[in-house]
């Protein structure tokens, strides 16, 4: 099994649109990186579709992280980076939530999302529902803050 040549970006783009339909709120392919934005409630459906579609097969969970935009109504932006090894393509899935809301855990779709999601929970305070074991991972277990939020000072707590 050698590395497959990357499937044309347009084809992947079209296929993602066809599979997800109007679940995609916004899409772009800046810097040759397909990015889609979806609603947090659609996350599990979208993830399963992206993984199981025979042409896309986004089987590799690359990474999850979050960006904090204080002052906005949906202040946390959760960003997933998925990879399709069979199609040799990547996709970025973004979703916005308010600080008190939660997102479905991707560990239900890709077991590899376990630790990365724990890290995001720990440092950013994103709550993942249905995660097998959502605990702090880098900080101490009785630590009270989420240090990567923008309102957390770099020094002098």
């Amino acid at each position, binding site marked *: 099994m050698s590395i497959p040549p990357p499937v044309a970006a347009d084809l992947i783009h079209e296929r993602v649109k066809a599979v997800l339909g109007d679940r995609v709120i916004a899409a772009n392919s800046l*810097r040759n990186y397909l990015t889609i934005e979806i609603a947090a409630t659609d996350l599990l459906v979208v993830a399963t579709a992206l993984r199981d579609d025979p042409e896309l097969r986004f089987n590799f969970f690359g990474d999850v992280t979050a960006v904090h935009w204080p002052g906005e109504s949906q202040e946390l932006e959760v960003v997933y980076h998925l990879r399709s090894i069979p199609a040799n393509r990547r996709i970025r899935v973004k979703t916005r939530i308010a600080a008190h809301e939660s997102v479905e855990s991707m560990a239900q779709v890709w077991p590899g999302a376990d630790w990365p999601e724990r890290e995001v929970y720990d440092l950013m305070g994103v709550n993942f529902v249905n995660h097998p074991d959502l605990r702090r991972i880098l900080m101490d277990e009785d630590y009270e803050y989420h240090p990567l939020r923008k309102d957390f000072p*770099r020094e002098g707590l």
Partner: protein
Amino acid sequence: MATVEIERIAGEDDSGLILNMGPQHPSTHGVLRVVLKMDGEYIEEAVPIIGYLHRGTEKIAESETYTQILGYTDRMDYTAAASSNLGWLVAVETLAGIEVPERAQWLRCIVGELGRLAGHLVWIGTHALDIGAMSVFLYAFRARERVLELFEELCGARMTHSVMRPGGFLEEPREPFYEKLESSLDYFIKEINQFDKLLSKNDLWLGRTVDVGVISGDDAIAMGLSGACLRGSGVEWDIRKAEPYAAYDKVEFDIPTGTGKGDVYSRYLLRLEEMRQSVRIMRQVIEHLPPGPVMTDDARVARPDTPRLYTDMEAMINHFWMYIHGFPVPRGETYVAIEAPKGELGFYVVSDGSGKPYRMHVRSPSFVNLQSLPYLVKGRLLADVVSVIGSIDIVLGEIDR
């Protein structure tokens, strides 16, 4: 940190033996702690506990310029700092749209492969030492010393060197570097063959590594494993070929997959072969290295020449601004992954248009690979934990960041 873990895996009835391994245990390669629930000599459950080396690199990065962050990336995978540097720079250059000159691209392959060699030599030394092969450790560190000397020749620093800059290299390597590199390549091959001779058919080694810590290719993909842990399971995947960066699309090399069985021995075999491929890449680079500058002339990142700096006011202002405020990077985001010695090293950078990133996130390969440890050792002997940790090849500086 671990009291909760111990209570949780001990369970209600408090049956079985709870064994604490680390964070100061030499075979955990740093400050990794593993709490094990044992049934006699067998592992019922393993819980890795990390975070002892957490320095908040991602938080610090938000108030440093893009060039300053380079120094922090050195301290992530400190056994192969060059790869972390390279990953960060490719991410920054992609986001800022900086073109890197051809010669610098080729030189980056040399630096990247030297880093891989250094990382793998530390891996084979410590991995063999954990399993009990003391002499391999000594030979491996002797060979690694040669790599570090090359880095010293290149830039003066040995381990945390930050030799590259956004836009290329700070300066052209001096002539002795190329001579020394060329004369070292045969030595590396000789050393690698020696490891091969000492271990690959060694009965004790085979007993400790064959069919230990097995993971299938599909499971490895689902678990997000990358690098040697993924290839060891027979999945031919290498970002250097899949999404080439630097000049990797212009050199020839193979992607070894070991025995493809996904055990410790397979990962061992393929890393040995990877070192040979690194040498092969460096040979090609030396042969085809194009002439030209090693730094872009893009005024955003190119340091003004020293004579101009003292005679021309514009150059001085430019220089001052560059070092105090950093160079502005257009608004946007990017995720760039490279093939580090440990696996897929990804940098996600969000810029708000200023000289400092709004958010920087590292997808470190060791972190994701380590989460497979409980799966790999479940039901195995205690001694296998040591060889599995060694074969995942972790660096805690990168896991905890």
